[in-house]
């Protein structure tokens, strides 16, 4: 009988994805919200391609940030229903497997949302990147991980509070500001092709390393807090 963190992490990911596949609670609400943002802003502004390249970075990340918050709240709410989290806590499984399992599960869901929504952003805002496309992929991977890792941690912190839907954005948004600024700036830099996004990407990578480590080290305390 072995309890490898890596194996248990993937067991948690598989369980979360299976639960999501059967309920589709998270994906449906994320898609609906993002779709609203795309359509409403598109009709409100009717921007030219040049204008779009300048502000779509902010718009895209606003849509994905708030969609991620929805996903995170619901993914932990599932663990509270029927008290399932207690069954995990009384087991010998390490808490970090639950944390990374949730992070990876949420990361994959948000990435799926981004893949589904990106063509709509291109279509509605007549987008064409002037900078290198591969940089956009790196920015989206790093940016999504930055949101998800902090979000998973703070959602775990707020699940036992009475106003958890309110608590999560209150805790997550201030600490995510540096990452969000870097994501938006880097995305705009690549889309407009005016400046290099490399320094912002390096900043995002550093942010991800620092916050992943901090959340990993503090998660057990948060999980067992009363």
């Amino acid at each position, binding site marked *: 009988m072995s*309890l490898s963190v890596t194996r248990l992490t993937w*067991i948690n990911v598989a369980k979360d994805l299976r639960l999501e596949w*059967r309920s589709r609670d998270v994906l449906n609400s994320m898609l609906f919200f993002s779709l609203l943002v795309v359509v409403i802003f598109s009709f409100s502004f009717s921007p030219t391609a040049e204008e779009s390249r300048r502000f779509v970075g902010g718009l895209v990340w606003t849509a994905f940030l708030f969609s991620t918050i929805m996903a995170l709240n619901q993914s932990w709410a599932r663990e509270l229903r029927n008290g*399932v989290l207690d069954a995990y*806590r*009384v087991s*010998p499984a390490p808490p970090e497997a639950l944390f990374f399992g949730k992070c990876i599960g949420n990361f994959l869901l948000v990435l799926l949302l981004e893949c589904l929504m990106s063509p709509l952003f291109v279509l509605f805002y007549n987008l064409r990147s002037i900078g290198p496309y591969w940089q956009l992929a790196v920015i989206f991977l790093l940016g999504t991980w930055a949101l998800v890792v902090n979000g998973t941690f703070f959602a775990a912190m707020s699940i036992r509070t009475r106003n958890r839907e309110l608590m999560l954005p209150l805790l997550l948004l201030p600490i995510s500001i540096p990452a969000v600024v870097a994501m938006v700036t880097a995305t705009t830099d690549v889309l407009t092709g005016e400046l290099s996004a490399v320094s912002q990407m390096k900043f995002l990578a550093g942010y991800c390393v620092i916050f992943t480590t901090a959340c990993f080290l503090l998660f057990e305390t948060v999980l067992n807090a009363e």
Partner: protein
Amino acid sequence: MSKIYGRTAAVRKVSLALQPGRFYVLRGENGAGKSTLLRMIAGLNEPTEGNILIYGLKTRDARQQMGYMAHAPLLYDELSGMENLRFFAQLYGINSDQPLVEAMRRVGLDPKLTRRVGQYSQGMRQRLSLARAIFHSPRLLLLDEPFSNVDPESALAIAKLLAAMRSSGNTILLVTHQIGLLAELADEFILLSHGQLVDRGAMKQGHA
């Protein structure tokens, strides 16, 4: 040990030693601290003062040897009974279905049932919850109101299973108000009142 929430002491200076292989019933009025005591032993709540040793180990090191069944079923509604057990079994390092099938049969559930737990009756949920607590053959079984909201047939099945487990040497600590079912099965009662241990003795004496 004690557990204090703000100014309220849920459990006050309770000192308790349980003998291996015996069946204990934890009794007391609502709010007496029974569930809190059980959660502290399970490692879900940290005692404000005092400590707990299970077979000589700290709670966090004794998790493999403990089975815990709470008020709530601690199961995912979207998964079937077997899928639930499979997930939790992996957390204990068990990758074979055989102990899970056996646990389901012992609680009187069909392991081939594909229905999701969300569609189970209350009695079936309680039985599955018990299967989740016993599939890894724990030496110490902690049960919080296993008979609540359960039909008489399920309650009797659970009581019989507990009797069999006690006979095979498991230690059982059970919180219940339905003492009648356990009058002949349990060895000892422990009575809590306002968070304090006020009485303890042989079950027949306590039941009388």
